């Protein structure tokens, strides 16, 4: 089932943990630098069992749009993130898979109790499952796909302007 070596799994865990921390800490540029140029960042509007070419998603960014998103956040006037939300997300229940073409897939459940401070000062709860597809780049990895399936993907959700 898990044909990946212990070292591989540890390295992948380290990588996704790092990615999560950059997102938590609104380290926009460093986060963008993790992406491959064919990267797709996707938050589907349900389980993701539809074609994003046929149905609308909460977020479906190709690399260019990821750059735009990051550029907008970096202006300092992205009011939906002024001030930035306070976040410390948890990833757990990781599963590791080998993909074709030397890529690797990591899936994990996550919980992110966003503390929103733009207007309403309260927790907003984000729960779901994240899938990464990555490949090696230098001594680390690059992201080809990050798909974030929210448990309430098909429900009304509040503003999601931070990096999830």
């Amino acid at each position, binding site marked *: 089932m898990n044909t990946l070596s212990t070292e591989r799994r540890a390295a992948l865990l380290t990588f996704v943990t790092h990615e999560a921390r950059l997102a938590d800490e609104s380290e926009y540029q460093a986060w963008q630098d993790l992406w491959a140029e064919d990267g797709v960042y996707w*938050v589907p*509007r349900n389980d993701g069992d*539809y074609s*994003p*070419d*046929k*149905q*609308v*998603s*909460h*977020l*479906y960014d190709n690399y260019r*749009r990821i750059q*735009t*998103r990051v*550029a*907008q*956040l*970096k*202006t*300092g*006037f*992205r*009011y*939906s993130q002024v001030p930035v939300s306070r976040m410390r997300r948890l990833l757990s229940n990781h599963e590791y898979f080998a993909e074709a073409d030397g890529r690797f897939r990591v899936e994990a459940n996550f919980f992110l109790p966003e503390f929103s401070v*733009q*207007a*309403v000062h309260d927790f907003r709860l984000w729960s779901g499952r994240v899938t990464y597809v990555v490949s090696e780049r230098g001594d680390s990895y690059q992201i080809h796909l990050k798909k974030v399936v929210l448990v309430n993907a*098909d*429900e*009304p*959700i*509040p*503003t*999601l*302007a931070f990096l999830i």
Partner: protein
Amino acid sequence: MATVDKYEALIQTDRIHGSLYTDEKIFDEEMETIFYRSWVFVGHASELPNPGDYLTRDIGRRSVIMARDQNGGIGVMANRCQHRGNMLCNQNRGNARNFACPYHGWIYDLQGNLLDVPYRQGFKKDFANMGLETLKTEIYRGFVFSTFNPDAVPFADYLGRGFELIDRACDLSPEGEIVLEGGWMRHHFDSNWKMMPENDTDGYHVSFTHRSMMQSLESQYDEFAGEEGKIPGEVRDWGNGHTEIDFTGGYKRPLDWLGTTAEKVPEYVRSLEQAYGEEVAKKRLFDGPPHAAIFPNLFLGEMNIVIFQPVSANTSIQWATPMFLKGARELDFRLLRQCEGALGPSSFLLADDASIAERSQKALLSGTPWCDLSRGLEREKHNDDGVMAGHMTDETSNRGFWNHYKQVMTAE
């Protein structure tokens, strides 16, 4: 009468009172008067392609089922069993032959007629009186409007010149029809629902609220930031609470509104020309879709359809879906990405509008100030077509909303 006086006092020509956004009693009165006694937008016929297709939606606080029956007709009815009041459907959408209540098994057909009750001997009432509460419903070019009030004003009186705005949207399709098959994003706002139509037809905020987008992305809105005297376009009050920002004046080329050019979508250009002739097609390709709010809860948001759903005085939900064009489905991918970019919780645009609305809501909950609405009062004027128009940055559209709101809330 006391209520009439209240709204007269709260809504003045040059300002409105903050409590209109925060007072739960006013919210209750809005639900009764606007959402249950007048007409509202429910959905679009293209959402229910097949007989038996249904969806549930909320009108104000009331859940309704919109269903296509076996004859292809579309009806809207309360989502509540006539027996003991259970919720009939607890799914967003589906296909059904009929509706069975999970509590005691009463069965209704797709038009809401009571078909059967288990153990019939014990139930003596006439089935004819025990069907689901159905709403008076009218459909215009697929747009389904309903009212709980059998004595509501005639539909045409309600929609008024809104017909023209809907036409402008549908006429972009070579087949004259829009298709809502893209699914709905639902974006939760911790703010009053009225901030949505206000903000969506406010031309004044663009350079400020959307400063970060302006700095990081070229868009069709770039033309509309600049010197006051040189800003093209205008805001409009179409009457009946319907209001608009018209961007046409700022477009430089056909299809600017789609962020593209005729060369890049030749198929679409060709089919439009074939359908309507070259001249008409040309104008439509230049002018593009409306950016207009239909009172109280529909927004024709350029190539998107938007619903405003009130939840409480302090919370609302904005629905959004791309407006696909029948006969030009090769545009779908582009429309999907534009919809996500402009609308919904992660968009470049509405995410910031939502946060600004939530800031406003919080500030208005903190004290009850007056909100100024005087901008451009002196310079607005009626266009030749009789529609009141103002400078792109003026509050003509918002005044249009509030004038009608006051009229509705103070009507006998």
